[in-house]
């Protein structure tokens, strides 16, 4: 007894003397819903008619959609305009029960954490508290959400003094005062380089922002206008939704609202489990490799094992790459879950409601301090660079269950393209304003091939349906980003297969009428494809960043129009502009200032292919050739189709013969499995390739070379060298060698 008492004294001391409240692992590592409380039990017992609940749900859903429209209309961030947001209602315990039908669904699983933090720490704190009219905000991904370019705002809804639920919205706002403009700094080497780090805090009372706090926030970012407009739009949307919740309470009673929110989660989880149970039991494995940190190329292993038992799914990422302590590509576990939920909400069961219960029957296994479960010390502004590939690892595994499953809500697909190929920009626009943000055309990711048809060209990002790549005339009216080519489908760079992945487009950007203008890019996959085909379909290729410096294309337009080219292939291979410097790079570009008329070129990627290329309809090959989407080389050497170069007419007999020959060749070249493995498999990762993650044994983690390892259950975080130092060292060595040679 005495021992216990002593312990509680110590506990109290510890509780009273917390240096500061960091992210709470108890909140952050659980994505499950809060247990059903007595209050909720009571409400559900009192209000249990399914059709009645359905009517209340319909009302609240309409309210979510209404407030979504408001944020989209009132928001100033490019993200808000293309729907990179959601608005929703959280239960009194902080679980997201209902969300707008539009918008980015990653948010559906991971917005609960900041609300739960507020409930756990601020509700009873005498200096904070939760009162009607309070406004809370948050953006630090370590407390929930995706990355700190997303800002969330929630307000509590009370009824006769009782906290009933929360309403609010989360928006990808862009600029946040990080070391690079636009809100997603790939140059960040610590969390302190990532700009505003708002843990959940109160920014206003009585439905009004505190002006001192607003001023502080506006002073902390490059776009004070955006900060203001973003906060206002979210607040008024949340308030509108609060009114709607009150209406529902007035019409149906408070228990109806409490019961509906909870029942929605309960029913959704039940349905998800029902669907999972129609999949075959077993294990599916994939290995995927991210090829860089955005500062340098390296191989980052994503090891993924999907284990399905009964109505549960366990996703095991153990054995994946360690975290990078001075790179921004690390993922907070909660963000990873959000992204994986996306696979199920958008690509497997798009008909399910948008709430966090969809992910409840799914569990994750990860190594602590791995790149997919990073510590709070690691920056995470570019977590997409590890959680997008993780998403793909799951996406290409799921068809192996789904193909024979008893329930399918949509088509079986290969890997969607998974990288945000666009320009982030920062500088002074043509009206003298300081701006920094990201272009909408990252939304043009190529669609994956499907089990019975091709993928669609640049169609939607992996994180949202109905996203927009925008209109160039509207872009260049606001910022000095001129596109010589805004989007032009790229030839020969897609995932081939019986059904091919949708093509991506190339874009050629330049700048006009600005005194200061810089670009950034944040994608991987320039050495190793970032998404994959399935069932014998190929991955798309790789995508570089290309630059032409030392040219002013506007002068060329005036004086040498014959030199102009409108594809990356022609510009780079023909090098038409005299005296210009042509170069290629991986797609991780830290802020780089450019001169007017210099060209920056990137290519939106393609989805993966489905099935054997030799089974592709020759007519489909011909159509693609006539649309100039594939070259004769691809027709002949990939699809093994014989067609007329002018008319595209297929020679059926010759094609059949050519394909037969190719099949025979495969049988000749292919080796029996055991024999092949003997010649192929190595003990360690290859020399000269900086490799991170496990190789054969998932409990042994490589840290960049074959001699540098650590155990998976005690990962030592990786510190990368400054790429400039690496380059200087290389140049110095070359210089020394040259000098030595000169000396003879």
């Amino acid at each position, binding site marked *: 007894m005495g021992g216990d008492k002593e312990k509680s004294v110590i506990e109290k001391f510890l509780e009273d003397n917390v240096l500061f409240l960091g992210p709470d692992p108890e909140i952050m590592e659980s994505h499950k819903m809060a247990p059903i409380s007595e209050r909720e039990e009571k409400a559900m017992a009192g209000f249990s008619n399914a059709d009645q609940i359905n009517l209340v749900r319909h009302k609240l859903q*309409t309210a979510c959609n209404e407030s979504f429209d408001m944020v989209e209309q009132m928001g100033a961030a490019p993200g808000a305009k293309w729907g990179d947001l959601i608005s929703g209602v959280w239960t009194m315990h902080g679980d997201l029960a209902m969300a707008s039908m539009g918008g980015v669904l990653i948010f559906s699983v991971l917005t609960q954490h900041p609300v739960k933090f507020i409930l756990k720490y601020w509700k009873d704190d005498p200096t904070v508290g939760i009162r009607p009219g309070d406004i809370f905000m948050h953006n630090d991904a370590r407390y929930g959400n995706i990355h700190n370019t997303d800002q969330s705002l929630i307000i509590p809804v009370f009824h006769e003094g009782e906290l009933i639920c929360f309403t609010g919205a989360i928006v990808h706002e862009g600029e946040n005062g990080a070391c690079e403009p636009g809100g997603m700094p790939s140059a960040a080497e610590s969390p302190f380089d990532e700009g505003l780090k708002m843990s959940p805090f109160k920014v206003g009372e009585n439905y009004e922002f505190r002006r001192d706090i607003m001023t502080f926030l506006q002073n902390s970012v490059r776009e004070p206008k955006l900060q203001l407009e973003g906060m206002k739009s979210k607040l008024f949307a949340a308030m*509108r939704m609060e009114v709607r919740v009150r209406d529902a309470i007035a019409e149906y009673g408070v228990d109806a609202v409490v019961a509906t929110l909870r029942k929605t989660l309960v029913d959704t989880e039940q349905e998800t489990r029902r669907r999972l149970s129609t999949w075959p039991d077993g294990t599916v494995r994939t290995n995927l490799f991210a090829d860089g940190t955005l500062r340098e190329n390296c191989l980052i292993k994503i090891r993924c094992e999907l284990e399905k038992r009964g109505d549960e799914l366990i996703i095991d990422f153990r054995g994946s790459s360690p975290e990078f302590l001075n790179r921004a590509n690390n993922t907070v576990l909660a963000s990873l879950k959000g992204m994986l939920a996306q696979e199920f909400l958008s690509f497997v069961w798009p008909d399910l409601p948008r709430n966090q219960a969809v992910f409840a029957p799914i569990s994750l296994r990860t190594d602590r301090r791995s790149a997919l479960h990073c510590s709070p010390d690691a920056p995470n502004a570019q977590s997409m660079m590890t959680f997008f590939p993780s998403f793909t690892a799951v996406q290409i595994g799921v068809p192996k269950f789904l193909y024979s499953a008893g329930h399918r809500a949509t088509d079986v697909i290969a890997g969607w393209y998974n990288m945000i190929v666009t320009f982030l920009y920062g500088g002074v626009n043509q009206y003298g304003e300081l701006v920094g943000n990201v272009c909408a055309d990252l939304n043009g990711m190529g669609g994956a091939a499907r089990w019975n048809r091709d993928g669609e060209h640049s169609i939607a990002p992996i994180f949202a*349906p109905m996203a927009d790549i925008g209109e160039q005339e509207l872009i260049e009216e606001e910022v000095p980003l001129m596109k010589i080519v805004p989007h032009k489908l790229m030839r020969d760079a897609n995932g081939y297969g019986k059904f091919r992945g949708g093509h991506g487009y190339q874009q050629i950007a330049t700048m006009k009428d600005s005194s200061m203008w810089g670009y950034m890019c944040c994608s991987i996959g320039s050495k190793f494809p970032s998404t994959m085909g399935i069932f014998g379909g190929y991955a798309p290729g790789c995508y570089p960043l290309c630059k032409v410096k030392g040219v002013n294309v506007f002068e060329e337009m005036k004086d040498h129009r014959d030199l102009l080219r409108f594809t990356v292939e022609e510009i780079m291979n023909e090098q038409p502009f005299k005296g210009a410097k042509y170069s290629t790079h991986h797609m991780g570009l830290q802020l780089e200032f450019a001169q007017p008329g210099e060209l920056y070129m990137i290519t939106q990627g393609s989805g993966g292919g489905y099935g054997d290329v030799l089974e592709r309809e020759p007519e489909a090959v011909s159509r693609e050739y006539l649309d100039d989407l594939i070259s004769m080389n691809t027709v002949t050497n990939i699809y093994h189709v014989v067609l007329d170069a002018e008319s595209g007419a297929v020679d059926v007999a010759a094609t059949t013969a050519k394909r037969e020959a190719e099949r025979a060749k495969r049988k000749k070249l292919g080796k029996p499995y055991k024999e092949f493995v003997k010649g192929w498999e190595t003990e360690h990762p290859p020399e000269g390739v900086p490799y991170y993650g496990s190789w054969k044994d998932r409990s042994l983690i490589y840290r960049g070379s074959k001699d540098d390892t650590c155990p998976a259950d005690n990962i030592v975080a990786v510190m990368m060298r400054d790429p400039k130092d690496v380059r200087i060292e290389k140049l110095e060595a070359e210089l020394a060698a040259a000098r030595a040679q000169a000396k003879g």
Partner: protein
Amino acid sequence: MRRVSVDIGGTFTDCFLAYDGKYIEAKALTTHHNLASGFMEALGNACGELNLSVRDVLSSVDAVRYATTLGTNALIERNGPRVGLVTTAGYESSVPLMRARGYGDGLDHAGQTDLPGADRPVPLVPIPMIVGIMERIDYKGAVCMEVDDEDVRKAVRKLVDQGCQAFVVALVNAVVNPAHEKEVERIILNEYPTHVLGALPIVLSHRVAGRKAEYSRTMSAILDAYLHDQMYHGMSTLEVALRANGYSRPMLLVHNTSGMAQLNSTHSLQTIHSGPVAGLEATGYLAGQFKEPNVIATDMGGTSFDIGLVTSDGVKFYDFNPVIDRWLVSTPMTYLHTLGAGGGSIARYDRLWGAVEVGPESAGSDPGPACYARGGKLPTTTDANLVLGYLDEENYAGGTIKLNRRRAERAIEEYVAKPAGLSLIDAAKAIKRKVDANMASAIFKEVAVKGYNPKDFVILSYGGGGPIHACGYAAEIGVAKVLIPPFSSVFSALGAGNMNQLHIHEKSLYLMLYDATFRTVLSDYTTFNETVVELEERGREDLIRQNVPVEKIQTRVELDMRYGNQLAQISVTSPIARLTTPHDIITLLDRFSTNYAQRFGEGSQAPEAGVRINVIRVVSFVEHDKLSLERSTASDAAKPVARSERPCHFPQLAEPMMTPVYDHTAVTDGMTVPGPALIETPRTTYLVEPGWTLTMGLLGSAVMVKNA
């Protein structure tokens, strides 16, 4: 007044004839192969009631006005001409990519969210029919690269070689500087003079749409070129038929902008959806005549439910980027929200929520509801209405369709009642309740998003299915008054008879009224004033071309304004046509602020982020005489005599109620009927729910009020 107005719909051609103070309604089946024959038949029916010949009427009316919901047939059947697109080099993929999200334009929510299943529609202009030419104009209209004659000729020849039948020229930033589009037109005409290839139409994007955004403007021009032939052909046959029957004036086409114009001043794009817009226009007029400041117009048909708003503040609601079929365009249209909900909406048991769900899938009219006995097996809204007692098996749609109760029961039994564990009646009640709730939610959102309180509105209900559900969805929203307009079954045709000749011209610009960065207020008024003058001039030319006397032309200036870089553009009617003093600027800022606050909440305005005008729009119009639709003030204490009675079930009541059934002729002006009651007309049934009272008005109009 002598006037013929017609609305050609998918099934019926509605005709409304005003003749020396008499108002006649008539209908005929739409004849898709030759719209003129259905038109003449409907007109013949109307003339018959006046004992006049069609020739007598046509040779003496002052106008024939024509609205249609058709026009998209060419799109659906894909039988338009082979269009070739000339665009700025580098922009060749803009149309094929449809801004990425285009795959979902025109689809319902389920279609939009299913990414693996997403398919773009078959393109109107395939990739080989798109050519890029070397030229570039920047955002402010400065030429970066000139048009090259030979380059254009080469591109155009390539299109012609591939069988091009219509040219669309859409170049970047052509709305700020149309010089290059005009230059290309000149070169094409020079290369192919009209006598060489016949009339090969050339559509320049800046003439079709005045706003920036290259994809949606190009798409507008493509649709215009694509629909042009068919529309022109259809209208011409109609005009020929009219001429042959003694009509000598120009025909007026109703536009989806709530105006109308002669054929020679009409883009085909402007005729799409003009029927429902005419209905909304009639609502606006009725609201004025009936002294109802705020009206929600609802039109429930077999497959769709249209919602439109008329408000006392005179705000015009536009859809700036409407979707036509599957295509996003940028010509402004009067805003109407269309919901896939009607009598044919299919009911089902939703396993997920353990509840009854209705729509959005529809059995349409073929096979239609189960009770039609045309092969439809699935339960629909109409089946539930039959089971609940609201419909008469023998007297549905004036007796044209015999309903089969047994089939309706079986369908509801099997697909809803059994899986939901409900009795047949409870299942039918749940369907009715859900249908009403779905429509109510949609109405609510439409009204609320625009900043109005739905409770401040009355509901106007027309179309075949509306009056059965009107009390239901009104009650769900909390609206206590429902109007049924006169001539409710030809209401859109009536609207067409009441429109003004009107043209809208608009232009994108970047005009900072208040620059927040430099804290300056606009002081140079030239751009604003010159733009308004230019747009007024274009509207005037349009009307003069149609022989409108100059002194009759009126104009209205509308401004699309926004705070900072927000997406929200609010169209504000400007009380000022020329800026002359700083006072004018403040007036505009105030006008915008009031408008914005109403929509998003007081305090949500953000002028500190700057205020910009994005688009100036000039509406040029000439007012025409209006029909007279007075509200009845009669009061008649006489009780109408019921034709029969039958038990009806209501969702809010456990037990059925014996409900009297009246023939509409038995209930005359000023009589009141307490609910529950059914009033049957040849085209629809008015359901007065328990707790509501109906008062009959003039010309078949009625008002239903919820008892206090």
